[in-house]
């Protein structure tokens, strides 16, 4: 108990303290408020302090990041919105806190269900961002968003998202999750090609 342990420990603090300044000088002020600087502070090569000054600086969200689901719609040539959702209800059934509510559309003439949701609600106060809905959706119609800044002043009126608020274009999805998007597109094209081949085979045999 001669105090050497404390002194050695303080040397660690000092090294870290000066290490930050050394990095700052080596980076010529580019360590902060630049994408490169942020990437550096997130890598395992980083020396010195690596705090990111949110909200002036933001760390990039990785592709898999998940926050509150959204619905994907595609647009046809006439600019009409086509929901990918068929209101099959798998997301509502798999949702752990049961925050998804779907109203199915019925054909006014026959009264039979049409594969398109009349209304789609998510109570975002209850949503736990687990991502199971997106994982098990067979139509790639519901996906997890990247927008995490959802604070509101009045939750009673703002936090039940309806279909209007939940719907986002396919291009948005492709922009936030490019790898997933291209993989799904490839699988979809492959499935369509297989289906076409099967149909062709059938018509030939007939």
């Amino acid at each position: 108990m001669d105090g050497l342990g404390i002194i050695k420990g303080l040397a660690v603090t000092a090294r870290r303290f000066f290490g930050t300044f050394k990095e700052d000088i080596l980076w010529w002020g580019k360590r902060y408020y630049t994408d490169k600087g942020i990437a550096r502070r997130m890598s395992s090569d980083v020396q010195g302090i690596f705090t990111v000054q949110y909200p002036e600086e933001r760390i990039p969200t990785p592709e898999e990041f998940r926050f509150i689901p959204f619905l994907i719609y595609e647009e046809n040539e006439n600019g009409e919105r086509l929901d990918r959702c068929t209101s099959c209800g798998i997301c509502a059934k798999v949702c752990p806190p049961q925050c998804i509510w779907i109203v199915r559309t019925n054909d006014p003439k026959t009264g039979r269900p049409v594969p398109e949701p009349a209304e789609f609600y998510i109570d975002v106060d209850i949503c736990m961002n687990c991502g199971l809905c997106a994982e098990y959706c067979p139509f790639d119609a519901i996906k997890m968003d990247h927008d995490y800044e959802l604070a509101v002043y009045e939750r009673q009126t703002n936090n039940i998202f309806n279909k209007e608020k939940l719907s986002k274009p396919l291009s948005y999805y492709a922009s936030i999750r490019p790898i997933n998007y291209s993989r799904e597109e490839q699988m979809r094209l492959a499935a369509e090609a297989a289906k076409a081949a099967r149909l062709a085979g059938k018509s030939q045999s007939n």
Partner: protein
Amino acid sequence: MNTTTIVSIDHLLEIFPDDVRRDERSGYEGFIVKPDNLNKVVSDLRDKMGYDYLSSVTGVDYYPEPIMEVVYHLFRSTGGSALVIKTQTPRDKAIVPSLVPVYPGAELQEREVWDLMGIQFDGHPDLRRILMWEGFEGHPLRKDWREPYFEEDGKPFKSRWPEGKIWRSEDKNTYRKNIQFSPGFDPESWVPEGDAAIYAGLGVVEKRSSVSSVKTDQIIVNLGPQHPSTHGVFRMVVSLDGETIIGLRPVMGYLHRNHEKIGERNTYLQNMPYTDRLDYLSSMSNNFGYALAVEKLLGIKPPERAEYIRVIMAELTRICNHLFAIGALLNDLGAYFTPILYALEERELILDIFEATTGSRMMCNYFRFGGVARDLSGEIAGQIEKLVFDRLLGKIDELDLYLTKNEIIRARAEGVGVLTPEQAIALSTTGPVLRASGVPYDVRRADPYSIYDRFDFDVAVRYHGDVYDRYLIRMDEMRQSVRIIQQAIRDLPQGEIQEGKPQYQVRVPAGEAYGRVEGPKGELGFYVISNGKPNPWRYHVRAPSFINLTALETMCIDNKVADAVAILGSIDIVLGETDR
């Protein structure tokens, strides 16, 4: 100890032909013991057969059958698989003998069973509610008990699809209507008699003579519920003689949400993200234990690549958790925030990996039955490799240099809060607390699961059982975890990550299963009973943070009140898991 040694478990049936029978229900294991002779049987199991470690106590309600069952999982502290002992009691008059005289570690667990299931334990020294509050009506885990927000017995609820007329639960059950009181109970005029009972439970005040020759007063001090050192909302009622602790009662349940009831309403898969919220600092380990339990029932095994990814993630989680535990302990010792922030920097790099792989930093929800949710990309595998080969060991060494020999830490931590190996086993402690007391018991070695038998690593063990050793052992374990990850990332095979097709509605055959992992805080067990329906019939979590607290009083007695804070910090509890 008795000299007659029972060689095999079957002899139990010969010795107690009238009291013990095999559990022959399909999918079940173990023995059913008549309650009258339970203490005799388990004493024999402990003394003659080496089942000295009571891991888990829980109850099962077989409503509408008029039976309640208490399930005990016994282990040998030298390793091996579980011996499951059950005892049955009528539902309307549920009383079984308490096992506290044989296994003191049953104390908090039996209180929990009484609180949530309404099974009384005859001979328990302090049978009070533990997680629910005193004026609460009923026992919520009984199958006929319904919560104020009750909709249906099992999810998915029919109202969600296809009608989907949205409403908020809180609008139907407004403030003050969302709670159930005992008849005649008025919250306005209620005086918490519970506190008097806590103080009475500290009865040691009268029994013990003054510790020193100086004349001192005996007083009771409440540390918490709101106290910076309690890591959450947790209360220690401490009885003091001068500054010396002569009695301590933990009071918990402030964060109780009845995780197990929610779990029994959920489907099997829906439970996975809820397990993240138990010990929210190490969600991957929670996923792991639950996945193992359900996979046991399903009789499936994940593919090789998934196994490796699971191990990598679980060990990264352990490093995260221990970094946090050490930092928080140093905070409790008064080294305010510099050590914890140094530790959190490394944790941050690991959390970035979790976020990129699973989509979330802490609520990972990554494991699936028979696999994992997403593949580990080559880029992230590279990041992990770089971290474990180039950075983490150096940083752990730096932390070591920074803290371990520090004279103030040693003065505060050495010889404080000592737990002997015998006490540690008897009190059912697990994880770093148990191993710091000189018991080299690690589930990864003692009862290997997943692919841990393939890796070369040492079970960290320290022998003094004090706060300092509980700090050191976490350092040791981090180094071992890095070693495991180094091997796993080197051998990581290519291939599938999911056995069979991913299903959102798994068909789980009827039966029971106990899956346990060596979580960062100790043995984390999940006891699941299936009756073949989409929702588990019984879902119980053996929470290490909760059960390790059984030893808190023993550790604290005869220490100074200021050390209680350090001792609590050295157990490393997370209230999300303690209170569930």
